């Protein structure tokens, strides 16, 4: 007989073990899907999760993808911890990229050490401003932040499209929908010759450290956590809820903006229509998989980055669409949320008792 009991306290080991359980269940589920589609599941999973990182170049690509994912997820963890549902990080990323890219074009042909920091800063501010729209509408006009932040993703995408097709398109570009290649001074340097991994990874790591400081060592961090656990308590304690909502949105927007500007000044080097393969949405999964914990998010970003690489490899070797990565990402989140049940409930396997027969 199976008996389900409510747990009185959550054990920390289970709290960090369930994400690992979720990953294994995802691999199992993925194997089943590949089998149904007519592939050898083990071989397909090998193409998906092992082949991409079996050489140095692949490993560098993993870090290239994890860099923006981790950065955005760190920002989102501030929102999610305080029960603010910013799901428009993709839009904030694109808008940060637009602002940063605009400044990079402005400095076209300029040399100087100051160029890149200005571009990066403007990208962060761009993302921050864009995230403040849903935050201000939520706090002062009571508007649902989920829908507003999401609608703004489409607006940002169309704005980017307009700019790269129209006013910002490369004058020597034969009408391709892209801007000029930024000058060398506007590019984040790569760390090793021949690999794409770039210095943007340090921005991510510094942000991780800062967010850990804010969340665990400051009063603001404490307020954020309390508001997430109980809004009533937060109100009773006299926290300024409105200011806090705007601050967490600003932090997460700035992170997404940084990720955007990091992409365009790092691996991409110009603006075009597809500056992000939905990093902003995928980072939501990263944030949850990492348990909204800065260190957890680092590991989660590596795992989710692997689904991107895996989808690319599988596209080449198995001819499955690149969206396959999203199937895996969705499954990870399903299994993760589902296995949270184990956090709150104990499942006891009891022997059959005679009186129950």
């Amino acid at each position: 007989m199976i008996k389900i009991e409510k747990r009185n306290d959550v054990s920390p080991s289970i709290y960090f073990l369930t994400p690992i359980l979720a990953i294994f269940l995802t691999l199992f589920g993925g194997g089943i899907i590949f089998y149904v589609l007519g592939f050898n599941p083990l071989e397909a999973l090998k193409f998906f999760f092992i082949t991409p990182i079996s050489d140095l170049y692949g490993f560098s690509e993993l870090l290239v993808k994890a860099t923006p994912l981790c950065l955005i997820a760190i920002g989102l963890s501030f929102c999610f911890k305080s029960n603010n549902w910013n799901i428009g990080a993709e839009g904030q990323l694109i808008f940060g990229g637009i602002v940063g890219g605009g400044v990079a074009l402005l400095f076209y042909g300029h040399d100087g050490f100051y160029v890149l920091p200005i571009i990066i800063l403007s990208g962060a501010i761009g993302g921050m401003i864009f995230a403040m729209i849903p935050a201000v509408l939520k706090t002062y006009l009571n508007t649902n932040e989920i829908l507003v932040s999401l609608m703004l993703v489409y607006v940002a995408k169309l704005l980017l499209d307009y700019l790269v097709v129209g006013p910002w398109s490369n004058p020597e570009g034969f009408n391709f929908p892209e801007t000029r290649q930024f000058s060398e001074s506007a590019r984040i340097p790569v760390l090793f010759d021949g690999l794409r991994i770039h210095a943007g990874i340090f921005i991510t790591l510094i942000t991780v450290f800062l967010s850990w400081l804010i969340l665990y060592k400051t009063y603001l961090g404490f307020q954020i956590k309390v508001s997430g656990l109980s809004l009533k308590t937060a109100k009773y304690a006299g926290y300024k809820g409105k200011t806090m909502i705007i601050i967490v949105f600003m932090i997460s927007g700035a992170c997404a903006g940084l990720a955007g500007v990091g992409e365009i000044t790092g691996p991409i080097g110009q603006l075009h229509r597809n500056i992000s393969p939905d990093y902003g949405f995928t980072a939501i999964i990263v944030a949850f998989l990492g348990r909204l914990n800065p260190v957890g998010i680092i590991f989660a970003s590596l795992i989710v980055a692997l689904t991107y690489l895996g989808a690319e490899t599988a596209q080449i070797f198995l001819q499955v669409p690149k969206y396959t990565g999203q199937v895996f990402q969705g499954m990870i989140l399903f299994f993760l949320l589902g296995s949270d049940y184990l956090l709150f409930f104990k499942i006891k396997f009891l022997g059959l008792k005679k009186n129950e027969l």
Partner: protein
Amino acid sequence: MSFDLNFIGILIGAIMASSVPLILAASGELITERSGVLNLGVEGMMIIGAISGFALMVITDNLFFAVLGSMISGLIISIIFGVLTQSLLTNHVATGLALTIFGIGMSAMIGKNFVGIPGKEFPLLFVNLKENIPFLGPIIFGHSVILYFAFLLPFLTNYFLRKTKIGLIIRAVGDSPTSASNQGINVTLVRYSCILYGGAMCGLAGAYLSLIYTPQWIENMTGGRGWIALALVVFATWSPIKVLIGALIFGGITILQLHMQAVGLRIPVQLLSALPYIMTIIVLVVISRDSRKIKLNTPTSLGQIFYKEK
């Protein structure tokens, strides 16, 4: 452009057609939300409906099976959401997002072999009446059976919620699951049913897109309509009739935007395409400003996890 009454009729007919997926998805989601469940997976369920409808049309060559199959697929995928949120008590927002991401990925995987296949002509009713009656003809006649169903649905939903016992139970569950449960209502069962119904309607909305509106399969072809449908439910303050009005307004913006592009106004195409999204935000702001009015109609337990101690 001369004033042409018949042209306006055709325009209105086009607006009606473009609002159908929104009406279907929003009406389904409305029932789900009325029972206290917030399912953000509308976009994912719609796209799954779109590909399964199209795939079944190609495989069986039978439109009835295609439409039915799309509803069943929407329903099946919503079971995932039901099991997670109702049985495993997961967070509604996160689970819904996962459903959308999963649905978009899954639909592309299934749809890989269906890209570029031409659709089949969907039978339209009363076509001769449409052509023979000026103005009213193109408005009332010459549509698919799904469109007529979609325009009836808000009224049926309204009647169902207000006048039937099951409707009352759903509203009770949404407003106060604890009291409903104390009255002997199985809250989990009611919520499961509402989730499945919402899934089926979203599936149908997707099939309308891939079988009738733009009869073909394109990756990501729902293009954010699921999210607009979610916004519509808020816009309508959970009232079915207002869903109809809202969907027509959004359909109107979409068609207007297409016509403005066709006429060649000197406005960037992208700005016009952004109109429906910007309008959604503006409308949400206007509606939500009055927090009392919102609170009056919002299902009180919306998005909250209900757990009954056994």
